[in-house]
């Protein structure tokens, strides 16, 4: 298993993967034209011919048979083309010493504060492959790309986490707020948003501050909370230094987590070292290793232990990375726990 930049020849495999996901993954629709465009943008982003507002780097996870079994992506800078909306959860205090009144009220302000930041997106892994650190490899490989090519990204990186909704796709936050402002279901709003219509939907949302106390108890409870299924992804990002700073999705109030690019653990603690010949040690840990090549970027997992001279890497791993002993790699323990 290894991760690499997507190429035009991957279209058929990507379509097959998209079809296998069933309905509901709006970022990976089984639509040949749209997938083809995504691949094209990624190739142009790497070539440096896509303007920054369009740049979006798409990666795939390839299994031993050469099949594409997962995707992940980073957008260089969101909101430069169409506005990018969040609610910011703020505080408003109403107090009068004379009346003996002191009320602390949470407020939601519609903002475009995240304009221009880089975004982690389009993470999808085929259900058959959700084991053996494949998810971590697929997601975190992006951090090595960020570490290798930081000049291509904004200083801040965000990820929007899916908010709370029930099995029927009903979001309590949407029911209490969004629904009043335009008559459609959350799933429809979410779909329109997913296919890039977010700004038009946001035109309908309240521009003035909304006092959270006006919302239903159910809605208040889910502000900044993630869907149960998203909890592992959130933990993973938190482990990398991402945190919730009060920005939530305007539809389901799911949290936007953020981190300065340089403060992401896998960026900050990754080191550029020399690939050494392999030798197994008792205290080997799992490293995430990239080949540092822009035009043929590859990342895989390596069981090894860092030495002052460099990182011993097995021949199989070197072959996945298209490297030889003596080449330079970027490596970081797969997670903070490994260290």
């Amino acid at each position, binding site marked *: 298993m290894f991760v690499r930049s997507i190429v035009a020849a991957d279209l058929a495999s990507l379509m097959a993967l998209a079809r296998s996901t069933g309905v509901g993954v709006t970022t990976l629709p089984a639509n040949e034209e749209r997938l083809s465009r995504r691949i094209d943008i990624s190739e142009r982003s790497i070539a440096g011919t896509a303007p920054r507002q369009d740049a979006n780097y798409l990666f795939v996870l390839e299994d031993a048979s050469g099949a594409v079994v997962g995707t992940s992506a980073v957008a260089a800078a969101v909101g430069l083309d169409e506005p990018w909306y969040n609610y910011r959860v703020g505080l*408003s205090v*109403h107090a*009068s010493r*004379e*009346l003996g*009144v002191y*009320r602390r*009220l949470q407020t939601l302000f519609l903002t475009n504060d995240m304009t221009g930041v880089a975004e982690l997106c389009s993470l999808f892994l085929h259900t058959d492959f959700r084991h053996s650190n494949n998810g971590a490899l697929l997601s975190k490989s992006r951090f090595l790309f960020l570490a290798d090519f930081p000049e291509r990204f904004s200083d801040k990186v965000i990820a929007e986490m899916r908010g709370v909704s029930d099995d029927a796709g009903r979001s309590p936050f949407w029911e*209490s*707020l969004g629904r*009043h*402002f*335009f*008559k459609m279901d959350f799933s429809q709003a979410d779909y*329109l948003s997913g296919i890039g*219509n977010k700004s*038009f*939907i946001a*035109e*309908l*949302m*309240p521009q*003035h*501050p*909304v*006092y959270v*106390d*006006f*919302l239903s108890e159910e809605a208040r409870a889910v502000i900044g909370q993630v869907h149960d299924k998203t909890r592992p992804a959130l933990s993973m990002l938190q482990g990398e230094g991402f945190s919730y700073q009060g920005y939530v999705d305007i539809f389901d109030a799911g949290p936007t987590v953020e981190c300065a690019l340089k403060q992401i653990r896998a960026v900050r603690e990754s080191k550029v070292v020399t690939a050494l010949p392999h030798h197994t040690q008792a205290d080997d840990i799992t490293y995430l290793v990239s080949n540092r090549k822009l035009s043929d970027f590859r990342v895989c997992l390596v069981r090894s232990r860092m030495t002052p001279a460099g990182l011993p890497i097995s021949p199989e791993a070197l072959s996945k990375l298209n490297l030889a002993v003596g080449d330079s790699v970027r490596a970081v323990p797969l997670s903070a726990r490994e260290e």
Partner: protein
Amino acid sequence: MFVLRPSRLTDLPAIERIAAKSPVGVTSLPDNRERLYAKIEASVKSFESDVCGNGEETYFLVLEDTRTGELVGTSGVVASAGYQEPFYNYRNETLIHASRELGVHSKIHVLSLCHDLTGNTLLTSFYIDEPYQYTEWSDLLSRARLLLIAGHPQRFGDSVVSEMVGLSDEQGNSPFWDGVGRLFFDIDYAQAELYCGIKGRSFIAELLPQHPIYVPLLPEPAQEAIGQVHPAAMLPFEILINEGFETERYIDIFDGGCVVQARTANIRTIAGHRRCRVEIGETAGAPVQLLANRKLTDYRATVGAAVVDEQQGTVRLSQTLADVLCVVAGDALLVCAL
């Protein structure tokens, strides 16, 4: 028979009795001796004052039984709302949220804190004992204020407003306050009205947010209370609606009660009254009409039989009625159909 006249300091005990009976929310009739005394004092001074614009004057009237001297009602006029402290209301507004791409155009109802009605003349303090409600005397109590305005237009504004008491239950809970004001104050409606009575209404208004409040987010009972009138206030409300007052635009910031407004010149009693010279004479079979003199400290208004001669510009009254109205032959009298 009843006559409406300016209140006097000697009326204080009787007015205190009335204030104690008036419902919560009628903050212009506080159940508080000192404030009632000040109110009468200000009124006496206003009727005596020689002003050429609408300023700080407040006129406070009482309805007196001419036989017994007993008082059975009160009503008032504030020359200029917001003269001493800002006069806040919520303005009913709609915001348009439009998305061309989605082809959606939705109107969102919001309440915006405003003081648009500053400078309007304000009708206040309406209260009448139960047996006289829905009689010509309740009409007199409310509408004679309009004849006072008609007789002295320079002392009042171009528009007239009145705040109707909004909905509250028997425990004194207001669904509008519970849904809106309580959020910002965490005190109950009765307490809020109490503070208003003591500190003034703008005190609380200044602590409310300047941001519009999205009505669809309010609890149902609060939404339903917007622009409603308390059953106990239906009488003064209906009288003003008949006068052509409009209801849509403003509501009270405390209980969401309706604030009615009309252009002074278009109010039915003001537009429809006639100014006549008094003649004393026979009035048997004459129609009963609303009558008011044009005096200030001796302002009097009542309801009685009177014969108007439009060509001559005169009105014929009995001597008794003329005495009640403090007029003699040749004096001006304002007359309006009931």
